[in-house]
């Protein structure tokens, strides 16, 4: 068999893939545990019955939040303060899945930046900068900078 041409970014790629995968799995598990706890009906911020009825009756998401919750919930990352509630825990799972890609990108970027084996030269730097741009876009999105909500 002919030799394989070595892909110079194979390690950063694996770091991105593994980090984002395991964070996503963690988020999915937390989400499932939170939802299970929520459906049992104990310790929740929003009653599952009223929430499901609002969702199924075609209520728009903004008014669902307004109908079913206090002002605190309209703040970004509201669930952190209320993590002892089942729905907040389920939401934490969603958020962990949401940040998985960002964490993977930053992990990959820092590997590319500090690796002793990294290739030097302008071509290698292009991909370092590209990884930095992607990780920054993801961070800006997570922080909600520029959103109009």
């Amino acid at each position, binding site marked *: 068999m002919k030799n394989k041409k070595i892909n110079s970014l194979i390690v950063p790629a694996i770091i991105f893939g593994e980090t984002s995968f395991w964070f996503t799995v963690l988020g999915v598990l937390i989400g499932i545990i939170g939802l299970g706890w929520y459906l049992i009906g104990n310790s929740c911020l929003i009653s599952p019955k009223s929430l499901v009825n609002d969702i199924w009756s075609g209520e728009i998401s903004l008014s669902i939040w307004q109908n079913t919750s206090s002002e605190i919930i309209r703040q970004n990352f509201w669930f952190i303060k209320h993590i002892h509630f089942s729905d907040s825990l389920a939401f934490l799972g969603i958020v962990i899945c*949401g940040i998985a890609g960002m964490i993977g990108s930053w992990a990959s970027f820092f590997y590319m930046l500090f690796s002793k084996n990294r290739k030097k030269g302008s071509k290698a730097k292009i991909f370092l900068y590209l990884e930095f741009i992607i990780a920054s876009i993801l961070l800006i*999105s997570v922080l909600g900078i520029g959103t109009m909500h």
Partner: protein
Amino acid sequence: MLLLVRFMNNFPRKYLLFGIIAFGILFGSVVYSSTGSELLGPELEVDPILFVNILFFSCILIGIFAVLAGVGGGVIFTPLMLGFTPIDSYIVRSTGLFIAMVGSIIAGRQYLRYGIANYKLVLLAAVPYTLFAVIGALIAGYLYTVTGEIGESVLRGLLGLIVIAIGLLFIFAGKQMEYPEVDRVDSFTAIFDLGTSYEEKSLNRIIDYKITNLGIGMPLFCVAGLISGMFGLGAGWAIVPIFNLAMMVPLKVAATCSTIMISIGDSAAVWPYILGGGLFPIVTVPCMSGMIIGAFVGSRIMVKVKPGIVRWLIIGVMFLAGIRLIIKALTIF
């Protein structure tokens, strides 16, 4: 599972198409009648456990068929849920984008680990795709909060047209090339030295490939990102042909790179929806879990089912969903 495989292999295609249409009309009319105000008023009680189970098992089915048809779950989930349920479109689009993201992160791990996906190419293509996916999500949020019902109807109608266009693309697009030949790499693409190789285990050989036309691919990725972010669809249906037909990337590399790009782009685009209140765990978690299980089951039965049948099934569902979305959009006028 064996019965399902046998049934799908033996069922004549023309009857299957009739079946899809009949089922669509029946399902559509039932759901349509249930969206009448007398049935879905605030007095209607829906059991949360039943609701979660319906979403979970529906998404298992969507996940199975998506894998068998070679598309992401989001592209089937969003039009179906928007066309055939009364759930608010912002919630559906947020959930569609979220499950596309989760599905692609989970699938992408293997592609990166075995070096099939070209990470250099992913980084280059992901910048315009991610940027425009976020812009698309912001536009969707703006239309949702500012233009109200009319903006929503316009979005629904446009999505209906896009879904029908994707269905037509599946029917009429030229056959994709498994191993495209590149005679000359253009000067712009050559700067990035994107050509590499991967091990094709099915042939037990190393495939060397070159890539060209990056300048053509970049603006197309912007359009794909915008559509993905705005409508809550995965964009594999657009990204794979751009890689394969425009940039001459081998089909397997194109498909794997597309998965990684969606995992990056949608990770950014999902945040305006999360912060905009579009995700509810009671919808998102069962859909996400169902899709993951469905994709897993689908990948196991994929080797035994004739892909053509599933492809026609998905095309039929997409046409139905597209028509339903356009009808829903027109009711506002």
